[in-house]
């Protein structure tokens, strides 16, 4: 092989650099994001695990039921009735988009377009003004 002296060390440096991120984080547990939970509410419309995994599916189902089928009946959770709505339902208890939705979405690097149209709760605006 020509230029063995350059290629082999070059390769080693390259592979080392590429794998640096893996070795650097080896053995460390990623810190799960800390969400702000609504005060005074004990349960959500579905068990927590299900909500974590498939809240987006539920939101889509609600959307189709409400707009297309006109099934607007409220959902009962812990004796209270809630609208099948993102703005008027979910965000009724989860009063901050920044401290609830965004924390996880940024951690997972997903950027849904809900808030292009839906209006974030007023608390976010108040928080921003207070800063």
């Amino acid at each position, binding site marked *: 092989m020509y230029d063995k002296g350059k290629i082999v060390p070059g390769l080693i440096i390259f592979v080392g650099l590429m794998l640096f991120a893996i070795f650097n984080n080896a053995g460390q547990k990623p810190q799960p994001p800390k969400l702000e939970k609504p005060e005074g509410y004990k349960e959500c419309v579905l068990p927590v695990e299900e909500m974590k995994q498939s809240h987006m599916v539920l939101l889509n189902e609600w*959307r189709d039921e409400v*707009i*297309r*089928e*006109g099934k*607007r009946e409220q959902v009962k959770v812990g004796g209270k009735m809630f609208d099948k709505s993102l*703005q*008027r339902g979910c965000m009724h208890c989860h009063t901050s988009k920044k401290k609830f939705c965004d924390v996880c979405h940024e951690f997972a690097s997903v950027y849904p*377009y809900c808030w*292009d*149209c*839906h*209006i974030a*709760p*007023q608390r976010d605006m108040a928080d921003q003004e207070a800063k």
Partner: protein
Amino acid sequence: MDNSRRKFLKIAGISAVATVGAPAALNLLTGNAHASSGHGAPQAAAPAAHGAPAAHGEAPTGKRYGMVIDARKFHANPGLAEKCIEACHTNYNVPDFGNKKDEIKWLWKMPFANAFPEHSHYKKDHTVHSMDFLVTCNHCDKPPCVRACPTKATFKNKDGIVMMDFHRCIGCRFCMAACPYGARSFNWRDPRGSENGVPFIKKLNHDFPTRMRGVVEKCSFCALRLAEGKLPLCVEATGDTGAMFFGDLNDPHSDVSKVLQSKFTIQRKPALGTTPSVFYII
């Protein structure tokens, strides 16, 4: 070698023809009623599935919300139309871009000649000429916009309301081309934006979303309020002036039906066959 390939192709060809043609041939031979089309069953089921309007003479089933607008009452109460428009547009976060080209309108005013071009306006009385007519989406029984929409973002719901699912709208504007009433508006600009420090939506209603750029919007007959047992905002805004009536056109005892039975009303562009659900007393 050649011979066997030739044979293989022959057999393959014949079996292909047989698989495709045999069921159709069988249908023809058995004299099945749907045989001619080959897809008879789904076609026969189609009208029921789409909830097509009943043929002439048959009693219609289900709800069909409609509205009667008494133009004389609006003429007698100056500012009432503006009040209705204000009530609607503030509640639904309808932006005001400040120019005609980008204008978004759910409910607006039009002179007679524009609202009713099919009706002769030759030698009409002065009042009609000077009057403005409150117009909105007609929630047609045969909505052309719904036929044009490639994504089913707009559709007719079970109450006869032509609804928009903003999530699905891709902004192709076919519906705008299809609507003969100009009832649909396109968001050329971001409704959340502002110009010279003035936001396009003066005051946000936090109970309803805004739209985003590239989405078509229109009147929804306040479907959400109807579900809550309330009247549409514009009808509510007219108060007890009797300028607007709202209800189920298929229910002979509803407010609208009673008005329609006792007064002469006209529709916008009836000859197009869209069968609008908004009627006018002139």
